[in-house]
């Protein structure tokens, strides 16, 4: 009997997995640093006194916010890299050739005399 093998992930699936995971790590690190410096209750206590949100919700909200921010940055980075010039671009593969230019009046004598030069 054949041993079952997991299907390989597509490039897009891998991209998203990496984005989600790395953003999570970055947000976790960000939360550690932030709450090492700031007491979460100080952040909310001032303006939303009537809803006493408690420490855990404060931690959660800030982490969610940081996660969202990191996700945005990661996803945009992924998008920019994936839609950028293809590999081999430097050797002139892919993309268009550099357009050639010439003196406008060379094959069009009537354009001479204007300030085309």
């Amino acid at each position, binding site marked *: 009997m054949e041993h079952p093998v997991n299907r390989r992930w597509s490039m897009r699936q891998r991209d998203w997995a990496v984005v989600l995971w790395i953003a999570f790590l970055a947000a976790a690190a960000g939360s550690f640093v932030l709450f090492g410096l700031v007491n979460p209750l100080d952040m909310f206590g001032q303006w939303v*006194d009537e809803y006493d949100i408690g420490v855990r919700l404060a931690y959660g909200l800030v982490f969610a916010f940081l996660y969202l921010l990191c996700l945005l940055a990661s996803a945009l980075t992924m998008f920019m890299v994936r839609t950028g010039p293809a590999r081999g671009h430097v050797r002139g593969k892919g993309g268009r050739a*550099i357009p050639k230019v010439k003196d406008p009046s060379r*094959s069009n004598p009537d354009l001479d005399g204007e300030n085309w030069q």
Partner: protein
Amino acid sequence: MSQKQDAGDSLYRKDPKVYPRDVQGRFARLRTLAVLVLLGLYYILPWIDFNGHQSVLFDLPARKFYIFSLTFWPQDFIFLALMLIIAGLSLFFVTAVAGRLWCGYACPQTVWTEVFLWIERLVEGDRPKRIKLDASPWNVNKVLRKTTKQILWISFALWTGFTFVGFFTPIRELGHSVMTLQTGAWETFWLLFYSFATYGNAGILREQVCKYMCPYARFQSAMFDKDTLVIAYDEARGEPRGGRRKTDDPAEKGLGDCIGCTLCVQVCPTGIDIREGLQIECIACAACIDVCDQVMDKMDYKRGLISYTTEHKLSGAKSQVLRPRIFVYLVLLLVLITGVLWSVNNRVLLRADLLRDRNALYRELPGDLVENVYTLKLINMDFKAHNYKIEVVDNKDYVLFVSPELQLESEEVGNFILRVQAPASAGRGSQKIDVRLTTLEEPIIERIVSTRFLLPFK
């Protein structure tokens, strides 16, 4: 490409330096106008005063944003968020209707690059002269021209950085501290950083920013459809291209209307050939339209070989301006703009927060009275000083004492101690009360805050 350039595995092809040729015409005039208006606003606004403060000032230390007659406090953050959403939606809307109008006329990258190009042209001359100068060996002329250009560029960049900081620090004070070399660390950093960014982006990187760094350039195509205005070369009319005399009959020579002068390539700030079709690098600046129209005039051909058009129009189909997505963007935009305008207009220029004293629930006083103590935080968001009256809405049982006196200067934040007394017979346990604050001066500003008044359960 030389052997040396091929070596290495850099992600990007080394494109030749782009020397955009000067161009005149309808769209070039439009862009000049956009540059003058936008940069005019940028450089002049901080110097104009309004209502006793700088017309546009983002005062970060005081956490107040002044935009003409409006002052935004940290509590108004929602407006800032909404305005950003409106800006984003407007970009979507404009892109869906008219393509990359933003890129060609209004983007700071385009606007400042244009100015840097003007300076470059002024000092080094137009395209052919610049190419010749760059290729020539270093001599007195080249050193003089290059130095002059750099001095002008750097001065302009520094002025730009100075103005940028002037939106965050009152610009007159900033000017004074710059003159006396007494700017603070952050001011110095941002002044130099923004100057450097201007110099680097508009002077050195230019089209590279649009091609490799700009996210909008990458995803704007998602907002395009076949009815979006794009700049395109009419291939059916232009091809086959070839040189000719004005008196030649193109049909006889088997030629289209494109005379192959390559001027459209030479004026292009991103160095592409629009005749190859719609390309992601095209920032829709319409320089190629202007120059091609001039050539067409010169040759006595009809204008519009390169023009603002749509894919549908090019393929002979009818182009539709009003499409579902336009409606969706427009409706969303109108709803948001109306909402923001309405709520900014109806903002109550008084903010009040009532916090219960946490130490004691209530205090029983002689005469069968119960007292609760609160901290009252008031922000007078108006430009005028005010005196306030405080009362409990629709209930004469409650008597209020405030210290110190309820008055605030313009834009002042104040903390007061509020003592509320009521007869013990007013109820049992927690009672909801609405406290109304009104100005004594006309026009009346009123705000009602709700809180709880605690009474014994006995």
